[in-house]
């Protein structure tokens, strides 16, 4: 693959359209055809190919927009971050293979890490030299991290870690794990929580892949048996580090994967284009119910775009967004999951006589449907998001005042 890497990143102060136009032009010119899910030449990119692609995007100013220049970022604002995400979403390109590093580990390290940790970890994340996985969930501690059991015991200048994590996305390829442990006992609940940056090559770490319903092994169980790491692997101090991380996470939940509404729209266009390419499916598009359903989807996508843009507007003004990330996550996951069911119902009519694009869409949207079952589960289930909205957005009382 060859990418245009010697790009002058434009100065966004020259106009509100400058950065979005730059992203549109670079991505349109450089995205390999085989990475486009609407291409007849589509194939799954290898890890090396994805990494090379994302590194090229970074060098073109399309990753790490808001990270400080001192740590490899471009030192720009959330407005440029949003502009780039709109264009990333508008193309049917693969998901990032380093989203945990860019959207979770990086911002947390930026907030609680030492200067040495920032210099060591952050540029490597953006340049796609190192991938991260997230070691938070445990078999007995999903949303309820008070039940976390993985234990870290200090032994002089080292820490000894024992425990088990689960649902760890990308663990098999990760260089580091953002690991959440406790220094005391389960009775301490939310007290004594401590984070580490643990190299996945450390002796005592065992990764056991889990096969998901889409046939992939995208997450895993990770066992930590007498894993010993130096004190320099610690991210912040007990309690203090995790408290800071929580604050970071509440913003990250609202600002990560901002491309979703635009990708949602891209998928809708892909579905319609595939139907139009096929004599039988194109007739379905004349059906009043289908037209109404498409109209509903367009309204939902508009609402999602509005939620994302409003978040950026508020953060840019320095306003607090509280738990508003839950609104976006919940609405996107439920609308997109319903869209995946709608798409499946259309492409399930595809057969040997169907057009090549329709046959391509049948594979893509069946896969998307299966994966969409996870969307109301990961990053806080629907029920958790509803709880958050009731508690922290609406302040609904559970007892009489």
């Amino acid at each position, binding site marked *: 693959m060859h990418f245009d890497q010697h790009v002058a990143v434009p100065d966004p102060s020259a106009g509100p359209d400058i950065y979005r136009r730059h992203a549109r032009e670079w991505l349109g010119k450089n995205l390999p055809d085989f990475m486009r899910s609407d291409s007849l030449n589509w194939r799954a990119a290898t890890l090396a190919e994805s990494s090379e692609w994302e590194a090229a995007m970074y060098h073109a100013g399309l990753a790490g927009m808001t990270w400080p220049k001192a740590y490899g970022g471009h030192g720009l604002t959330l407005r440029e971050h949003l502009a780039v995400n709109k264009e990333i979403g508008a193309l049917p390109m693969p998901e990032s293979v380093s989203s945990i590093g860019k959207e979770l580990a990086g911002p947390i390290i930026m907030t609680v890490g030492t200067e040495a940790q920032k210099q060591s970890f952050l540029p490597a994340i953006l340049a796609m030299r190192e991938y991260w996985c997230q070691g938070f969930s445990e078999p007995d501690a999903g949303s309820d991290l008070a039940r976390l059991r993985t234990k870290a015991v200090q032994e002089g200048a080292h820490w000894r870690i024992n425990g088990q994590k689960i649902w760890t996305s990308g663990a098999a390829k990760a260089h580091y794990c953002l690991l959440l442990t406790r220094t005391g006992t389960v009775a301490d609940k939310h007290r004594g929580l401590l984070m580490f940056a643990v190299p996945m090559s450390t002796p005592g770490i065992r990764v056991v892949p889990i096969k998901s319903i889409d046939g992939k092994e995208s997450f895993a169980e990770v066992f930590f048996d007498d894993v010993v790491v130096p004190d320099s692997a610690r991210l912040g101090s007990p309690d203090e580090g995790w408290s800071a991380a929580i604050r970071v996470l509440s913003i990250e939940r609202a600002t990560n994967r901002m491309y979703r509404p635009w990708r949602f729209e891209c998928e809708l266009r892909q579905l319609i284009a595939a139907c139009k390419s096929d004599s039988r499916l194109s007739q379905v598009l004349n059906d009043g119910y289908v037209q109404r359903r*498409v109209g509903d989807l367009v*309204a939902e996508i508009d*609402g*999602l775009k509005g939620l994302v843009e*409003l978040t950026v507007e508020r953060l840019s003004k320095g306003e607090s967004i509280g738990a508003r990330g839950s609104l976006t996550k919940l609405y996107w996951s439920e609308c997109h999951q319903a869209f995946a069911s709608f798409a499946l119902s259309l492409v399930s009519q595809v057969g040997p006589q169907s057009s090549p694009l329709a046959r391509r869409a049948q594979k893509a949207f069946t896969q998307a449907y299966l994966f969409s079952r996870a969307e109301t589960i990961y990053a806080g289930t629907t029920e958790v998001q509803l709880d958050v909205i009731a508690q922290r957005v609406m302040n*609904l009382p559970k007892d009489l005042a």
Partner: protein
Amino acid sequence: MTMEDLQPEEFAQAADAAITDALSHQDPRKTAEILAQAGLCGVMAAEADGGLGLDISFALPIVHAAGRLRLPFPLAEQILLAHTLVDTTEGQALASGERIATIAWQGSLNDAWIRVDHGNADWVLVADDNGAVLIDIEGLSREEQPTLDPDHPQTWIATQDARVLARLDSESWPALQRQAHILLAEFANGAAEGALQETANYMATRVQFGRPLSAKQAVRHLLARMRLLQEVSSAAIRRTIHTDEFGQTRDTRPALAGAIANAAFVIEKAIHLHGGMGFTWELPLHRALRAVRKLSAAFDSLAQENGRAYIQSV
């Protein structure tokens, strides 16, 4: 404070007071007079026409308040017509509240009948082949359709022999429709917010089994879903008044279709959560539902039209 310093949110306070005052009279003429005196009817009208000359962002909180407080008056239409009929006696009469005008969202001058949601208007804007015309409906045949809203019935009006007062050309009419989509969406969203606020307050104080109903997870989750949809509508409406990074305006139709559907859901669930009281005439939530369902009827085909247009655009 000068007009330049004024923020839309601050204007909302004046709107609340005037609408509350108008509601106490239950007379459309008096309502128009009070709203006009508070500057609401002419908020977007030119200063030379007796208006305030402000942009649509100032009209948004006004129609939101009208929806939230369940004002049975075509305020969105009145504001926009006073603005659009610039430098005319009709525009001035609307800004001053001397006359009341609405828009027929169903039917055109070519049809035998048009339908309006506010039959007590003096004038109605009606689509025609070249744009739209403002007609005087005094003396025209009419048939009220009180099934959905007996107090403020939808009204069919025969357009034959209608007297034309003013014309909008083929550029002005779509521009007016676009602004009307935004304001009517905000009216529906205001109605939803009012119903949601009242329901959340009631759930927080209505005690059953020793605790407020808002302690029950089923209730909390339903209220959270209602809040979600109301926030989605707000966000979708808000983005229609801004251009994108390239200076392009955004389609207003999806925001209106979404806001109406979301508001209907929120208000229906608000009635449900009030239990038996919600089903009574005494509790005014049904008035909000009737107002929003009249909008549903007026824009019944909008979602399908949006879908068809989107499919054609691919």
